[in-house]
């Protein structure tokens, strides 16, 4: 068979398979689309069987979620989540950037062992240290304190960040850094003025992925926070038992709380695999 005929055949088949891909994409997205549609329905229209696809749209679900009906306001939880995610991400970057420097640009002896130590901590399940952390927090009055979560989320994301940044920093030509050092620049200057600007896209992707994992976390937040430091996922657990007609409100809540993750995820799309595979896949 000639190469042209082969290509023609595969092109025709490609169109059919493209259709299958579209179909599967829509099937996977359908629950999210349905959630979005339901969030704009009234509670009466949301809870019908068969489903009312063409019911009139309203913002009542969102108003309810934001506390218009006298329920608890989600704002404290959203603010707590923002503090926990943003602060822990900043700490991660401050700790990971010098560490990655010492593992790639001017590597310490046995740098691969250190790198794999970081990775192995990621494989230690969260429940392994949960109880001592709880007892520690209780005895030091750190329970229900958002800064305890900040510390824990920093430790949760630091290995990922070190691995990702290690692979980004390894791509920087050593000559540039040597030149800066010859000019008398100290390490903080080298990191902030030379390394950070070059590795900026990689650092941004790392930050977004750390942000996502912190924002999503439930187990630590559920055990270690209560009324004051409650995060958005803990707020969502209030919807676990159904309370009459509340489907539109649940959908609105889920969507609003997922919005930052969806935004961060799509922004980091190209580097998402690398972060999730801890830098093993490029």
């Amino acid at each position, binding site marked *: 068979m000639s190469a042209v005929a082969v290509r023609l055949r*595969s092109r025709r088949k*490609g*169109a059919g398979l*493209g259709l299958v*891909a*579209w179909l*599967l*994409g*829509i099937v*996977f997205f359908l*629950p999210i689309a*349905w959630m979005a549609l339901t969030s704009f329905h009234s509670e009466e229209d*949301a*809870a019908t*069987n068969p489903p009312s696809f063409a019911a009139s749209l309203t913002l009542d679900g969102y108003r309810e979620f934001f506390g218009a009906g006298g329920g608890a306001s989600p704002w404290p939880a959203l603010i707590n989540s923002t503090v926990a995610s943003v602060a822990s991400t900043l700490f991660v970057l401050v*700790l990971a950037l010098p*560490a990655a420097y*010492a593992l790639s640009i001017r590597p*310490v*002896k046995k740098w*691969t*062992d*250190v790198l*794999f130590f*970081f990775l*192995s*901590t990621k494989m*230690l*399940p*969260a*429940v*392994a*240290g*949960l*109880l*001592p952390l709880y007892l520690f927090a209780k005895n030091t009055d750190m329970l229900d304190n958002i800064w305890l979560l900040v510390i824990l989320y920093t430790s949760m994301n*630091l*290995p990922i960040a*070190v691995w990702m940044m290690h692979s980004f920093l*390894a791509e920087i030509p050593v000559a540039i850094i040597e030149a800066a050092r010859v000019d008398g620049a100290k*390490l903080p200057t080298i990191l902030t003025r030379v390394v950070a600007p070059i590795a900026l896209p990689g650092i941004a992707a790392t930050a977004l992925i750390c942000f996502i994992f912190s924002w*999503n976390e439930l*187990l630590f937040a*559920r055990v270690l926070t209560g009324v004051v430091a409650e995060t*958005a*996922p803990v707020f*969502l*657990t209030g919807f676990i038992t159904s309370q009459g007609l509340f*489907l539109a409100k649940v959908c609105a*809540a*889920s969507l609003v*709380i997922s919005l930052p*993750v969806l935004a961060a*995820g799509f922004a980091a*799309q190209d580097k998402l*695999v690398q972060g999730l*595979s*801890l830098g093993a*896949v*490029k």
Partner: protein
Amino acid sequence: MTATTTAPVATTPMRTTRRPSARLRAWATRAPLLPALIFMIVVTQLPFVATLVISFFDWNSLYPDARHFTGVDNYQEVLTDADLRHSVWTTVLLTVAVVLASLVLGLILALLLDRKFKGRGVVRTLLIAPFLVVPVAAALLWKHVLYNPEYGLFNGLLHYVGGPQPDWISNTPLLAVEAALVWQWTPFMMLILLAGLQSRDHEQIEAARVDGASDWQIFRHLTLPHLRRYLELGALLGSIYIVQNFDAVFTITSGGLGTANLPYTVYQSFYQAHENGLASAAGVLVVIGSIIIATFALRVVSSLFREEVSRA
């Protein structure tokens, strides 16, 4: 726990200098690493050591004065208690089912997305979206919006074709949790496998095709061997995350109907039953399970990593 894999040899540029300044320089090189390293040891390793110690004590936090050393009694109780043994089995079942199903689905989707077609970027975005819903929100979505027997979408759609109206969560609780997790984790597998597919040698495949190899032959003899390590990586990383899953079990069934996995059981035994010793023993068992998986995972990551280093 530390890495047991043999890592590639470090290529530290060593210069011959006078002894004291060499030592000083070695510490100057190490200094930027130390804050992160010390932080990780304090926050992740110390609590685990504490868990290990507590696991040898009979300790109910409601009766703190009755605390005493019991040796391996907690482990015996965890391993002989019917509920706890069941949760070990549930953890295995949940992890294996979710990882395998999402891996197969992810492979199919990755193969489809590897071809050029109109709107490929849009389809890719649609497929990634489930992974970017907050896990608790995704679990709530499945529990209330899809599974609800009266007004859930599944039964609503079944209604159109005159199908039955099952109570999904009550009838098949574990499967209900698994389906929700497969939906969230398939995009993860797809992304890893897609990266694997795109790193194939395309000239080799083109050559095989011109030589008359069928699509199946190319898949079986070229693509699959190349993908093997990516499949392993996806399976192992997926296992590590799903063994630890708490959100879906907590949200969809609250550990009821025989769906309590080990993380949920650990949570429940100290948060609700206040059995600190038992909870710690169960926690240590989760860690042992994870170490077994992690040893394999580290080997796979290490081999991919070595390839990366040798290529650079």
